């Protein structure tokens, strides 16, 4: 059943302070809405449990991409378009820029936001594996103050996040130390735009004297949360890439993920694809980063 707009309220306090004050006064009552690409879909279908929404789309405090010598800070309400067209994001964080280009079509990229993607907490979200491998930190803000945490600890379970009832994501910070890495982003889905991934990979690697000095792997749609492959990374570190290693690594990936059967794919297919994507990345890394 379609939602009746008369049953919902949407307020636009106009500045961050006023938004936080209202969220503190009535915790867990107000659902933040930025570009609406997730919220409005549920709303239109009559499936949005919240009746009170608070507009954060036009808050200038959340719309900046700030560049510092050692990191960049992306405001939570920055759109996919803003990220993929930003000079430093596209040059130094290509995994994030590429994931932004996969998300929806142009119209949804003009409205969908990075903070929204994080808060919506879908394990299939395309941009979240990139945040994991880039060691992103998120800043959460409320009237009580701001706190910064590693993005890797933000999702505690399927659709569960570290956000308190009165908190908002303010920004996402990425250290600028990965531009020398070989990077690899792959989405497997029915089509690139407008289709949710069956599996997606974000990977970074650095070789020294033919062995792996550092490697970072994250997958979407293979677990209840976006998943960093810590154990597989550990096995790879210090090794020389050769066929026997790649075979062993496929087994490690299969052990580390927990994919499910759903309308988009099967656990078996997802496992095969996840292993192959990691193998494809290692082959690319071994040949010095040229695309396979």
């Amino acid at each position: 059943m379609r939602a009746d707009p008369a049953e919902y309220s949407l307020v636009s306090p106009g500045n961050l302070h006023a938004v936080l004050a209202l969220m503190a006064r009535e915790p867990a009552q107000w659902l933040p809405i930025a570009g609406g690409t997730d919220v409005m879909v549920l709303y239109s279908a009559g499936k949005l449990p919240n009746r009170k929404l608070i507009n954060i789309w036009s808050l200038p405090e959340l719309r900046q991409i700030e560049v510092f010598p050692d990191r960049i800070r992306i405001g939570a309400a920055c759109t996919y378009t803003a990220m993929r067209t930003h000079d430093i994001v596209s040059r130094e964080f290509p995994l994030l820029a590429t994931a932004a280009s996969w998300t929806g079509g142009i119209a949804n990229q003009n409205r969908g936001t990075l903070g929204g993607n994080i808060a919506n907490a879908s394990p299939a979200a395309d941009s979240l594996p990139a945040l994991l491998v880039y060691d992103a930190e998120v800043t959460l803000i409320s009237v009580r103050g701001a706190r910064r945490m590693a993005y890797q600890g933000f999702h505690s379970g399927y659709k569960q996040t570290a956000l308190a009832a009165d908190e908002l994501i303010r920004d996402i910070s990425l250290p600028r130390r990965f531009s020398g890495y070989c990077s690899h982003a792959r989405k497997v889905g029915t089509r690139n735009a407008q289709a949710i991934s069956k599996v997606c990979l974000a990977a970074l690697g650095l070789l020294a004297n033919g062995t792996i000095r550092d490697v970072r792997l994250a997958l979407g749609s293979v677990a209840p949360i976006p998943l960093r492959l810590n154990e597989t990374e550990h096995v790879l570190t210090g090794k020389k890439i050769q066929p026997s290693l790649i075979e062993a690594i496929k087994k490690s990936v299969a052990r580390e993920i927990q994919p499910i059967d759903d309308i988009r794919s099967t656990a078996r297919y997802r496992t095969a694809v996840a292993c192959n994507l990691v193998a494809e990345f290692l082959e690319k890394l071994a040949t010095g980063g040229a695309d396979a």
Partner: protein
Amino acid sequence: MNLAPAADAKYEVSFTINGEAKKVLAHPMERLLDVLRSDLKLTGTKEGCGEGECGSCSILLDGMLVNSCLVPVAQASGASIVTIEGMSAHALMKPLQKAFLECGGAQCGICTPGMILAAVHLLEKKPEPALADIREGLAGNLCRCTGYMQILEAVARAARRRVAK
């Protein structure tokens, strides 16, 4: 601070639409798509899926291509909106119309307003798009009739003619 209107109250929203200042009375969570079609009778904007997947309801909101089914009208307050009706005076409209007709890019017509707006949004940023750019620019607009090749060719043809001038 703009205080909360009561949940069941309509309030006045003002914006510019196709160059004209307008005011409507609406609930803040009404979809901009419904306000355009029902209140303003601008029925060139079509509803396809109603969930941001098909692009039939594409409009330009402050110059950005968006799906109007996903925009609560309160977020359009003060904005400049262009719908397909507002495109008639646009320099790209005639070349696109002609190319769509020649290439068979418009059949049942439901997706066409969105396709045209997505094409305009692309060509304003990239006057000489490669085929890959056109594919990407129109990837959020679904068509159940043409199989897409005619539409992609129409946009390419309109772009070539415009550049040749």
